[in-house]
């Protein structure tokens, strides 16, 4: 297969290798699929609910890609009927997936930089592959993971295998009581680049912090999606400048994103 073919978006049938609940309503799903070979950190796949009355693919970020083993790992939260359906499936069952979608984090921009990888809630999973890829590239000056949980922690131990990891919990049950920005302030963490994924209030705070401290930041956005490939214009975000594709102040999160330079989007 040529490199171009490998990058082509496809709808394929994946086989569930294993699945377990790793925190309340958070599921860790391993899929056997040829898409594993071309996945980059920060990209996502669309997962189709087996129930045909639920039409649209659910966008779920890639937590880990194992190209040799042909495995994609998705860690997701049950948020509605579609994800509830996925959570009831087990090894050997099949899922249709569309991918690989989106642009991903610009790992190479972190060369020589001291980088914060920040994740909040269900924005944490894509940051795992991000720190793994940063570590594999080996060009970043240092990597710190800053993770924000409601209460129960998940994936944190795996982060600690690849970098220094800090955590905050909203209820104070572990680490800093509060959110990721409280954590950054408490530890007086200093860096010169941020990669972040999480809920919108967190991303707004990250953007504000980055601008106030003159730090380059890349944030991963989400929005209700339909096609996932840039055709339907359902999942747009506001951009500061006129977007090259749309010719208006809108970019497609599924295709132009989900990762944007924080200053380029109005959030």
């Amino acid at each position, binding site marked *: 297969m040529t490199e171009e073919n490998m990058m082509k978006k496809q709808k394929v049938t994946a086989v569930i290798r294993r699945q377990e609940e790793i925190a309340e309503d958070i599921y860790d799903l391993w899929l056997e699929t040829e898409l594993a070979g071309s996945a980059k950190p920060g990209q996502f796949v669309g997962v189709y609910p087996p129930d045909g009355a639920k039409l649209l693919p659910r966008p779920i970020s890639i937590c880990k890609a194992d190209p040799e083993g042909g495995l994609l790992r998705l860690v997701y939260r049950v948020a509605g009927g579609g994800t509830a359906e996925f959570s009831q499936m087990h090894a050997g069952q099949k899922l249709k997936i569309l991918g690989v979608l989106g642009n991903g984090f610009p790992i190479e921009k972190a060369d020589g930089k001291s980088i914060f990888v920040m994740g909040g809630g269900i924005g944490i999973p894509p940051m795992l592959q991000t720190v793994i890829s940063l570590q594999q590239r080996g060009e970043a000056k240092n990597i710190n993971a800053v993770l924000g949980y409601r209460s129960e922690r998940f994936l944190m131990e795996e982060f600690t295998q690849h970098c220094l990891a800090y955590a905050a919990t909203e209820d104070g049950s572990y680490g800093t009581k509060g959110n990721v920005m409280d954590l950054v302030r408490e530890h007086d963490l200093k860096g010169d680049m941020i990669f972040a994924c999480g809920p919108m209030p967190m991303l707004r705070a990250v953007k504000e912090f980055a601008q106030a401290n003159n730090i380059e930041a890349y944030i991963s956005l989400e929005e209700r999606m*339909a*096609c996932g490939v840039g*055709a*339907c214009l359902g999942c747009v*975000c506001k951009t500061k400048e006129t977007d090259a594709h*749309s010719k208006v*102040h*809108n970019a497609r999160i599924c295709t132009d994103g989900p990762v944007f330079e924080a200053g380029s989007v109005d959030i």
Partner: protein
Amino acid sequence: MNTGVNIAGVSFQNPVMTASGTFGSGMEYSEFVDLNRLGAVVTKGVANVPWPGNPTPRVAETYGGMLNAIGLQNPGIDTFIERDLKFLEDYDTRVIVNVCGKSIEDYVEVVERLSEQKRVDMLEINVSCPNVKEGAIAFGQNTEALMKITGEVKAKAKQPVIMKLSPNVTDIAEMARAAEAAGADAISLINTITGMKIDIHRRKFALANKTGGLSGPAIKPVAVRMVYQASHAVSIPVIGMGGIATWEDAVEFMMAGATAVAVGAMNFVNPTTTIEAVEGIEAFMKQQGIENVTDLIGCVE
């Protein structure tokens, strides 16, 4: 075996098209579909200037369907000609350009800009989008407004004109007859059905626009009924659409009276729905011993 159809003097290699707004200009789906195998690519609505569309959320899933309120975001006719039409030059398929506007002057401006474009085989005039405040559906919900815009567009158009009709009317046959009387070369239907969804946990509308257009398999029986009624009310060709998910659905629309069909929301679900419909129709014709696909048109008894 002949799968070709003819609409207003334009020949199509097969009756399967894409529904406007669900396929961009084909660029995004060319990764999944060989555009050369389609009867036509029907492009997303284009206006005289770029339109920003509606706030998000713009889409919401419903049982067997989806609501959208994109609001006809489009890059405007200049970019469309330079980029999208240029992209389509490399493909051997028919190109139907969907045109939208806020006023009759807007529509006519786009139609005139397209008149010299050799790559454009037909125009589809969107008088049925339910998601914009001005224009669009305002021209498609009463016969006088529909006849006026149809006449004005026809007076300037160099390519044959399809009027895309709204299902959000009391009598679709009356609208079809009005379009025909004003000179339309063909009609296409149905556009989406106006709907609403409420998130009961947040007590909020699922769409920022409150209402949106319902599409997908959930609307197919409504669409088949309307295609049947419209095609029996006029003698111009009808392009049928609304929830087509399989080749069987495509055949059903043709039997109801459609000369051609278009796949819409299901492109999002299965990006190769169009190609599967083309192949399925061919296999059906072979199996049934049907020589011309046109024999299917309106054959329901």
